[in-house]
């Protein structure tokens, strides 16, 4: 299992899509390839943009299917962050 503490990478407002892409390419996808579980820990993250969350997980869902979400957990999300993650995951499954 790998644990990723988002605040250590983005600061308290997660909006930098370049960083989101780095997390996806360098941490999430390699872990999925090894069939490892991933915990994305949003402790201390006060806000996130839809663009950030999209850059973080949309391509994972597209490439590995919604089943990839069985391996990914989102921990310590406040309400707005939780809602943005839900919106992105919902529309990726509609698309």
């Amino acid at each position, binding site marked *: 299992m790998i644990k990723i503490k988002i605040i250590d990478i983005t*600061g308290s407002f997660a909006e930098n899509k370049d960083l989101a892409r780095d997390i996806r390419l360098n941490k999430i996808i390699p872990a999925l390839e090894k069939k490892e579980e991933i915990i994305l820990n949003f402790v201390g993250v006060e806000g996130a943009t839809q663009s950030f969350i999209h850059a973080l997980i949309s391509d994972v869902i597209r490439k590995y299917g919604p089943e990839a979400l069985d391996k990914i957990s989102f921990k310590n999300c406040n309400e707005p962050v939780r809602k943005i993650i839900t919106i992105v995951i919902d529309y990726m499954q*509609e698309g």
Partner: protein
Amino acid sequence: MEIYLPNSAFLGNIDPFLKKIDRSNQAKLKITANKKWISIHPVVLCMVAALGLKVKPENISCEKLEAKSKHYLQRMGLFTLLKIKAERSIIEHEPAGRFIPLTRITNSLELTKFITEIIPLLHLEPERADSIKYVVSELVRNVLEHSKSEQGAIVSAQYYKKSNTIRIGIVDSGVGIKETINNAYPAKTHLEAIRLALTPGITGTTQRIGGTEYNAGAGLFFIKSIAQINREFFMIYSGKAMYKLLKSNPHLKRVILHGDPFQERHSKGEDYPYWSGTVVGVDIALGKTKEFSALLDIIGEVYIKTIKERKKERYRKPKFI
């Protein structure tokens, strides 16, 4: 070029200001102003700055400003950014008067730094800051990713005590919305391109529903919706077209969002002086701002509904013969 700063130009009454911009002779810029008073939205200042940055400082002339409020232009950093001399020295205040002076953002790191700094400058409580950070981040990232603007994004914001509102302007001198959208959709006019750019799930990077790994086509829809739910103005101007979301009826209990921006209460036009790039102005009223979390419920619901409808439009139909 010539730009006239009127006594009042906010999003509600900005149209005459936009129509008066003279884009001829692009090597020179003349700035003139109302003699008595200058009271303008930050987006107006951003536009002046964006035009001025295309011209050599020695080719910018600013007539002797007589209005009492002329110091505002200096406080907001217009003369500094354009590297031109103000007519007289004005006592500089620390930038803690609840405004964000004109700032040029050219890369992702500068944006992250800017977002960290704006909230203390605007003296906002954290729970009021979410919408502001969100709007600035998404709009500036649009500029950095799509506009191809050499100047990057020009940003400015101001708190207005009387209306308890933060007014934000973000302007670029890039390729404009039509060229960006045309990478994926055949918008024939600037207004059609703006309409598409404000529609959920439409991005200039792909026709695929859900977007690319990097773009979903949600940013402008979210921002227009934040303004709309808070019953405030949102204005976008690119090429010869301008779309303005008007304030919703204050007597309506609930604002209804639509996927199509033309179904909202709005004004629009396609006969404006050509703006090469994109101009966005947005107002966020703090007193009546719904919690960001509550905004997301409404925005998310309409976003998903619109995506579903778009997907359904692409269903193959059975051929009955």
